[in-house]
């Protein structure tokens, strides 16, 4: 258990000496993953709701595909985004490779299926309940989607937090498209991989503990802001 104790001590030291590099890395981790979660939610939540409401031929296949895409290996997504954004790739002229934007793009691709799939599953039950009411009110499709999205917002928050969890701990894709450049694209997970590679296990473990603490505080903050998980509100 020496390693964990040393890691804890490292984490403690980094946080309380206000290590500027650490805060830069943490800030970038949050910036990349939160941006990705917001964009992925803007795509995934309506997509999930739409799949609940709309009946079409390939619906079952689309849902199965969405569920399958949750298991997409991040390193493959990273490689695909790299090839798109490379100077020799189709979007090379944009010069986006090795920037935080590239990392956000990769994470959006990784997170969106997860958010859409969880959103779809939670809203399916809600729709069964609302179906007759909304149809009798002659609500348009957009109104129906809006209604179940809004009334299911707490469950959807869970979908977003799951997306955040997958994003903040992801290393395979952002390592390739971000490049782990010091002060530019280095985030917590890539820094952990780097320090592990150098054999600095205590330092890497310290960063890992900070990552867990960060993820925990974001989850708690979201619950606090949205007033969920309290005795009076279920």
């Amino acid at each position, binding site marked *: 258990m020496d390693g964990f104790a040393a890691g804890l001590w490292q984490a403690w030291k980094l946080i309380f000496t206000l290590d500027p590099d650490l805060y830069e890395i943490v800030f970038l981790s949050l910036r990349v993953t*939160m941006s990705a979660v917001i964009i992925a939610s803007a795509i995934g939540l309506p997509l999930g709701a739409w799949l609940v409401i709309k009946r079409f031929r390939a619906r079952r296949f689309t849902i199965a595909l969405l569920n399958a895409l949750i298991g997409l290996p991040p390193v493959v997504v990273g490689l695909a985004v790299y090839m798109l954004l490379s100077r*020799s790739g189709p979007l090379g002229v944009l010069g986006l490779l090795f920037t935080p934007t590239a990392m956000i793009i990769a994470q959006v691709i990784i997170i969106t299926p997860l958010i859409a799939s969880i959103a779809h599953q939670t809203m399916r039950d809600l729709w069964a309940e609302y179906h007759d009411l909304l149809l009798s009110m002659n609500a348009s499709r957009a109104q129906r989607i809006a209604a179940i999205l809004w009334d299911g917002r707490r469950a959807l*928050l869970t979908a977003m937090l799951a997306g955040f969890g997958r994003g903040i701990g992801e290393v395979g894709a952002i390592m390739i498209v971000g*490049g782990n*450049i010091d002060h530019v694209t280095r985030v917590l997970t890539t820094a952990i991989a780097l320090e*592990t*590679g*150098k*054999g600095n296990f205590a330092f890497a473990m310290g960063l890992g503990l900070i990552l867990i603490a960060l993820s925990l505080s974001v989850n708690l903050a979201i619950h606090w802001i*949205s007033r969920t998980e309290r005795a009076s509100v279920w």
Partner: protein
Amino acid sequence: MKLLNWLIAPLLALLSLTPAGAETIRMAVTTSFHNSGLADVLLPEIKADLGLEVQLLVVGTGQALKLGEQGDVDAILVHSRAAEEAFVAQGFGTHRREIMYNDFVLVGPRQDPAGIASAQSAAEALARIAAAGALFVSRGDESGTHKKERALWQAAGIDPTAAGPWYREAGAGMGATLNTAAGMGAYTLSDRASWLNFGNKGDLALLYAGDPALFNQYSLIPVNPARHPHVRADLVARLEDWLTGPRARALIDGYRIGGEQLFTFNAQPE
């Protein structure tokens, strides 16, 4: 909509931040160079002297060459002569400029079950490992170190991939490979800098070094602007002048870990 406001306001604040507008170039370097810690000495000096921010992509030589080929970096600093010359010959790089060298070392379990410490040459040391069937961890990642290792096996007249289960390919960077070797009590080939800087030596020890075949030359190759017009050839030229100049010589020759000199500057003036 209160929730959305909470989420969106900070996001907009985050997205509006842009990185500092100093002149920057991207250079792909090998893990072994980065693990040496020399970059942490050179980069601040380059920034001070040239006002140039060099962003490092730390990858294996194979990936570094690929990034250069695709035009995703402005220059590469690697250590695999044959691959470098092919890179320049194919027109991906303008030229190859030697900067400095260090050497490779064979590390392994302190008890040295294969007895390589008394070998007369690197090839003989490897032959003894093969004969003893002692565990050997290879980088297995097409890096400069991996290519050097394969050349050494060839010199020893052994095809390790066909030789038996004692030969393990990690498919990883130098640090990860050293971690693997430490965990398995295996032999491995490392550059001296990574080895000295490595934090998890465990039971491993430096067992064999000094054969001229273990010489490890680092060279700078600017990516060809004729092929990739967006590369900052002008800035790379300034970096090359600096890296081959007296300031770099003093810093490179003067860089020490535990009192040991890691690199020897050997750039020739043009």
